[in-house]
C-alpha cells in the first residue's frame, strides 16, 4: 500500500463531506473554498502515492488496479481543473464519492504480477483513463442536469434545483467534456487496436478477439460518444437526451475499466 494512502483517503473523504455540506447547507459560507483546498491536498497526496507506486514497479500500465487508482486521481484532477472556470460544488459532491470508491476498490484488490509497460501500452492506459475521467465530469454534470430538469418540469424544487447551476451551464459542461474527452478516448481506441493487431499476429482468432467484452464495451463507449458529438454538432442534440447519452457512454467506459479490473482479479486467483 502506498505510504500516504490513509492520508489521501481521509482527505478525499473530508472533501466529499465538505462538498455535500456545501450543497445541503443553506449558508455554506467558506465551505466551498475549504472543500476545494481539501481536494487539492488530496490530489497532491495521491500524486505522491502514484509516484511512489511507479518507483516500486506498480505503475498504472503495469496493473489493472493501478490503472483504476490512476483513473480516480485523474477524475479528481479534471474536476479541480473545471473549478477554475466555474464553481460547481454539486457536481463535485457527485463525482468525488465515485473517485473515492474507485480508490478503495483498487487498493482492496490483491496485487497482480506486473506486466512490463511498453510506450504504446502506457499511452493506451493514459488515454483510456484520462478519457474516462473527462467523461466522468460530463456524467456528473448530466446527473445534476437530469435532477434539476425533472424538478423544473414538476414545478417542485429541491436543493439541487434551487441552488444548483442553470440547465444551460450544465449542458455546456457536458458539451465541453465530450469535446475534450472524445479525441483522448479515440486515441485510446486506436492504441488499443494496435494491441489487437499484435494479438492477431500471434495467431489468435479475429472473431474471438472482437467479441471480448472489454473490446465490445470500448467500441460501444466510443460509438455512443461519437453519436452524441455528431448529434450535438449536426442536429442540435442537447439537454436531457444529451445528458442520458453521456450517462450511458460513461457507464460503458466504467464497465471497460471494471472488466480489466476483474480480469486482473481472476488472474490473481488462478495463479
Amino acid at each position, binding site marked *: 500500500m502506498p505510504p500516504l494512502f490513509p492520508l489521501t483517503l481521509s482527505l478525499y473523504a473530508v472533501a466529499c463531506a465538505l462538498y455535500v455540506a456545501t450543497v445541503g447547507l443553506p449558508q455554506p459560507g467558506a465551505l466551498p473554498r475549504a472543500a476545494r483546498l481539501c481536494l487539492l491536498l488530496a490530489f497532491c497526496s495521491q500524486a505522491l502515492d502514484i509516484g511512489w507506486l511507479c518507483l516500486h514497479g506498480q505503475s498504472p500500465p503495469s496493473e489493472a488496479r493501478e490503472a483504476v487508482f490512476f483513473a480516480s486521481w485523474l477524475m479528481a484532477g479534471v474536476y479541480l481543473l473545471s473549478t477554475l472556470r466555474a464553481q460547481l460544488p454539486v457536481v463535485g459532491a457527485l463525482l468525488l464519492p465515485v473517485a473515492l470508491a474507485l480508490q478503495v476498490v483498487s487498493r482492496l484488490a490483491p496485487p497482480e504480477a506486473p506486466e512490463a509497460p511498453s510506450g504504446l501500452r502506457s499511452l493506451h492506459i493514459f488515454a483510456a483513463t484520462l478519457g474516462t475521467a473527462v467523461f466522468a465530469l460530463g456524467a456528473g454534470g448530466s446527473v445534476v442536469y437530469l435532477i434539476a430538469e425533472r424538478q*423544473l418540469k414538476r414545478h417542485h*424544487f429541491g436543493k439541487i434545483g434551487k441552488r444548483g447551476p442553470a*440547465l*444551460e451551464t450544465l449542458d455546456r459542461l457536458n458539451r465541453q467534456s465530450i469535446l475534450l474527452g472524445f479525441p483522448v478516448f479515440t486515441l485510446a481506441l486506436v492504441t488499443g487496436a494496435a494491441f489487437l493487431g499484435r494479438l492477431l499476429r500471434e495467431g489468435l482468432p479475429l472473431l474471438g478477439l472482437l467479441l471480448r467484452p472489454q473490446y465490445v464495451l470500448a467500441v460501444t463507449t466510443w460509438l455512443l460518444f461519437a453519436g452524441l458529438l455528431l448529434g450535438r454538432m449536426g442536429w442540435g*442534440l*442537447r*439537454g436531457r437526451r444529451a445528458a442520458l447519452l453521456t450517462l450511458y457512454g460513461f457507464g460503458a467506459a466504467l464497465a471497460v475499466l471494471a472488466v480489466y479490473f476483474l480480469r486482473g482479479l481472476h488472474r490473481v486467483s488462478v495463479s
Partner: protein
Amino acid sequence: MKLHVLGVSHHSAPLDVREGLAVSGEALLRQLQAVRGACEEAMVLSTCNRYELYVAARDDAQLEAALQVAIGGHGKARAHLYKHEGERALQHLFRVASSLDSLVLGEPQILGQVKDAFEAALQAGAVGPLLQRTVQRALQVAKRVRTETRIGENAASVASVAVSLAGHIFGDGGSLAHHPVLVVGAGKMAELAARHLKQAEVRELHVVNRTRSRAEELAAKLGGVAHDFSQLESLLARADVVLCGTGAQEPVIRADLVQRVMKARRGRWMLFVDIAVPRDVDPKVGEIDSVYLYDVDALQQVVEENRRERQREAEAAEAIVGEELRRFAEGEREKGVVPTIRSLRERSLAMARREVEKTLPRLSPGASEKDRQLFSQMAEAIVNKMLHGPLTALKRDAAAGPEAAGGGLEQAVRALFQLDEPEPAEQAKGKDSQPAQKQQPTQTSGGAKEANR
C-alpha cells in the same frame, strides 16, 4: 429625547388611507421641513405599503405637533395609526428596513426606500444625531440580514418567479439581457407581468396581439417591438421566455406549434409563463423536451413554497434584529452615562492637579517644570487607576439597563461623589487658599532661614 414612530401600513390601514398620505419629491421635502419645525428631528418613509413618520421629540406636545403637521389634513388616518417609542420604535425601524414587516416578506426594495427617505430628511435638514445613529444602524442591520439569511433569495411574486425560473434554465444570474422575451397578449395582466420582467434587464422584448394597435400601445410603454399575430411562430422560434396573458377562451399556443418551433430552435430551451385564465398554452406543451411550462397554478405553487422558505428564514432574521437591537440599546444606554463619567473624571483630575500644585512647592521648593509634569502625570495615573473599576462597573450597569440587578449605579455615583452639587473646585479654592496663606509665612520663614544660613 426618544425616537418615536407614527404611521400606517398595509397591516393597519386600507389602500385609500395609505394613498391619501403618500408623499414624494418636493412635497416630501416641504413636509419634512414643516415637521422639523415642530420637533427635533424627522424622517418620512412613504412607500406604496406604508407611511411612517420617524420623529425625535422631547415630549408628547412636540410629538403631537409633528403629527398634526404631517397628517393634519387626513383625519381618517388617525384611526389606523400605530405609535411606538424608544426601543419599540427602534425595533420597528430595524424590522422595516430588514423587510420583515413588508407585504412580501424579504422584498429588496424597502432597503432602498429607507435610504431614500433618509436622504430626503438629510436634504431637508431634518436629521440630527439620533436619527443619524438609528437609521444608519437600521441600514447596517438590514444588510446583515440580507447577507446572513436567505430571506431575499426565493422569489415571492409571479413576475419574480418567472425571472427566477429563467435563471434556473439559462443562468446569467437571473438576468434576461441575452434572452429575448415575447409577450403574447396586451391586456392589463400581461402588461403588469411584463413590467416586472423588464426589471430583469430585458434588452429584446416583442409584443404580439390579435389587435395590432394594442400590441403597439403596450410595446411603446415597455420599450419593445410590436408584431402581427401572424408572426407568432417565427417570434416563438426567437424568444427564450414567453409570457402569455391573452383573454382567449382556447389555447393560443398548441403543442404541435411548439414542436415545430423547437425543431427550428434546434432544441434550445424555452420557458412559457402562462398567467391567463383560461390558459393560453396547451398543457401538453410542458411535456415537450426542453420546454418548461408554468401556468397560474404552477406559479402559485412555487410562490407558496418560496413564501414558506422565506418565513423560515424570517425567524433567523428576527434573531439578528433582536441581537442588533440589544447591542444598539446597550450602546445608547452607555452613552447616557457619559456625562456622569466625564464629570467624575474631570472633577477627580482637577482635584489631583490641585493637590499636586499644593504639595509640590512644600516637597521641593525649587521644583522644575519637568518635575511638575512628572508629579501631575503620577497624580492623573493614580486617579485613572482608581476610577477604572468604578467606571467600568458604571458602564456595565448602564448597558444592562434599569431592570438589571444593581441598577441605578449612576445615581449612586452622582450622590457619592456629589456630582450634582456646585463645582467643588470653587469650594476647594476657598479652603485651599487658607492653608496656602498659612503656609506662606512658613515658606517665607523657611526662605529666611535658608538666607540666614
